[in-house]
């Protein structure tokens, strides 16, 4: 961490959730509730072909017969699916604007405030961004440059129109709609999200990034992301998210599918900062996310890095299916819960191919009255000869009203598998705090420094531009933790 960050920490730790503002913009919104009509409405708004609508309706039929998964260590009132808006878009947004002159200045202003400038001259260097506002993609930067390399980076809506073959082939191939109720729900009503295709042998020269923003009230966000890395290609993709402060809980149920073909590598990073609710546990996002990557080809690699600081409830297990021989899956996670937040997060590594390797590094930090659970499943199938897993789960408790839980499952059907597991739970060390403060750091600075140090193994996996951002976020999340 550099000293600039430290200065920033100081400023940041003084303001609470600073993304909590609301953009006042007229929207197109059908009635609340989930039924076939709303699905047809979404599909027609997006001008989708019939196969897509059929896929949605099929998924809806599946959802109708399913119950929510119940195994997570989470406690929340029943979600009333009929009391949610399933579509919200700024008015007259049937077609994505061709350029920024067609975008409502209020939207551009919103993203400026969030630190994501969209204007050509101000765009983030080295990062191409697709921004999603409620149910629609607003703009994608650096499109032209990527097209020259044959890289497709666009909204999923656009991909359905322009690249139907790729979408048909891969959509739902890693997360089948019937996998569980949240994946069925997402498949039925997903609105927007990003699509990435990296052609054979191409190393994507910049970070690709999507920024999700929930603005409208009582609106669910159901984005769908599909990333395909063709043979020998490489891509690093980043996802960020925020939402306004609201007293009601809002539902976010995304599906993200990654496919890495032979020798390809996908690095997927998330900085999740949905509104967590206030200090009494009122409001906040319910974040039920399914992320799964398929290492389809030999020597392929998928790496998930996540920094989870937001949401009232986080239910999320970015997973890897290691099908290709010698393929590698990685999961690096920092999850911080404060106040009344609950997080149940972890990963699933499924070893199918020979010599497949997986690595799990999880750092959970609990403060206030929050509950933080790591849940992981590592399985070795019969043919996964000489597969290996390394798991390290560390929990840090700040205060004595919070909880940290570690639930690792291991299932091996192949006796050549090698499994290493390390776990620790500790309280924030008073001697470390004393030491830092004796040098002149405030109590709050000291906590944030020590926690950032605790997370370093994970934070250093993030792309440079975002590591600093993530450190600030870690510090903000610790706010109010010291008396």
């Amino acid at each position, binding site marked *: 961490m550099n000293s600039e960050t*430290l200065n920033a920490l100081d400023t940041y730790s003084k303001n609470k959730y600073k993304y909590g503002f609301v953009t006042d913009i007229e929207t197109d919104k059908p009635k609340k509730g989930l039924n076939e009509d709303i699905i047809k409405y979404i599909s027609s708004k997006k001008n989708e072909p019939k196969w897509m609508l059929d896929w949605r309706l099929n998924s809806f039929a599946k959802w109708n017969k399913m119950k929510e998964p119940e195994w997570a260590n989470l406690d929340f009132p029943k979600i009333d699916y009929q009391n949610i808006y399933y579509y919200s878009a700024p008015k007259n947004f049937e077609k994505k604007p061709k350029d920024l002159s067609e975008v409502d200045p209020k939207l551009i202003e919103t993203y400026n405030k969030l630190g994501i400038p969209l204007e050509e001259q101000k765009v983030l260097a080295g990062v191409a961004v697709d921004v999603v506002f409620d149910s629609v993609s607003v703009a994608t930067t650096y499109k032209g440059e990527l097209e020259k390399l044959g890289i497709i980076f666009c909204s999923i809506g656009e991909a359905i129109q322009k690249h139907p073959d790729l979408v048909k082939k891969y959509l739902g191939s890693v997360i089948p709609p019937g996998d569980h109720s949240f994946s069925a729900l997402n498949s039925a009503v997903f609105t927007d999200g990003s699509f990435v295709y990296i052609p054979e042998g191409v190393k994507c020269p910049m970070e690709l990034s999507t920024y999700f923003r929930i603005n409208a009230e009582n609106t669910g966000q159901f984005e769908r992301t599909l990333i395909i890395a063709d043979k020998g290609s490489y891509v690093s993709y980043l996802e960020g998210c925020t939402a306004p402060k609201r007293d009601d809980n809002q539902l976010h149920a995304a599906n993200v599918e990654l496919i890495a073909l032979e020798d390809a590598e996908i690095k997927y990073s998330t900085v999740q900062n949905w509104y967590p609710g206030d200090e009494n546990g009122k409001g906040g996002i319910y974040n039920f996310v399914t992320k799964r990557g398929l290492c389809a080809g030999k020597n392929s690699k998928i790496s998930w890095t996540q920094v989870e600081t937001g949401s009232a409830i986080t239910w999320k297990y970015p997973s890897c299916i290691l099908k290709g021989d010698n393929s590698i899956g990685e999961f690096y996670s920092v999850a911080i819960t404060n106040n009344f937040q609950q997080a149940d997060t972890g990963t699933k590594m499924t070893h199918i191919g020979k010599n497949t390797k997986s690595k799990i590094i999880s750092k959970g930090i609990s403060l206030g009255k929050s509950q933080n659970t790591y849940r992981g499943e590592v399985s070795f199938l019969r043919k996964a000869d000489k597969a290996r897993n390394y798991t390290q789960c560390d929990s840090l408790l700040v205060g004595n009203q919070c909880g940290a839980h570690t639930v690792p499952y291991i299932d091996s059907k192949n006796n050549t598998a090698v499994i290493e597991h390390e776990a620790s739970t500790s309280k924030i060390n008073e001697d470390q705090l004393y030491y830092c403060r004796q040098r002149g750091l*405030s109590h709050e600075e000291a906590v944030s420094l020590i926690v950032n140090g605790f997370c370093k193994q994970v934070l250093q996996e993030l792309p440079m531009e975002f590591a600093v951002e993530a450190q600030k976020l870690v510090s903000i999340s610790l706010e109010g933790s010291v008396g």
Partner: protein
Amino acid sequence: MFLDINNLSVRIENKNILNSLNLKINKGEVHAIMGPNGSGKSTLANVLAGKEDYEILNGKVNFKDNDLLELNIEERAQEGMFLAFQYPVEIPGVNITPFLHSAINSKKKRMNEEEIDNLSFAKLLKSKANELGISIDMLKRSVNTGFSGGEKKRYEILQMSILNPDLAILDETDSGLDIDALKIVTDGVNRLKTEDNSFLIITHYQKLLDYIKPDYVHVMVNGSIVKSGGAEVAAEIEKDGFQKFQ
């Protein structure tokens, strides 16, 4: 008066550790405290630095016109108090550069002085490290993490040199050092010494005082100062031990 400890009594876990302790230090003076193990030397250092585990039963401490016991740990540090720890704690994942940089700037902020920028700080750190024989490689590691005893002590002196305190308390900084390291460390202290700052040096052995010349030597037994004098007191202890004071 610069530091004035008046009739200080301190308890921890129902055990009296410091008993009506008195000590006065003027600007520009070097004081040494010697005493057997368990006599309360580290406790005194920690109470002065503001560690919160202690129960102050009685007494007053004045530091630079402040009622010291009213200030918290970081306020005391920012006022110019530095404690080189007997056992410096490891802080994994935290690099010394940003750590010390924000430490020095929080002090400057309190003093209403201009903060020091990245580049100037990096230069300062490098040159001080060089003086103390600390390699660049060591600066890249996490604070105290995986350091040997001697390395930790040198790191404390490095931090002291950067923060340039008004009052530096060195708690057995000499223990665990070989002769070469002792020389480096004491050179560091002597370089820092001016008319305007003071040192309180806690030690077990007389050896250290061959390198740092104290103005006063105090003998501490059972939480009180039982004898004060000049360098000759140290020589006396060297010869006869602490026995006769107990």
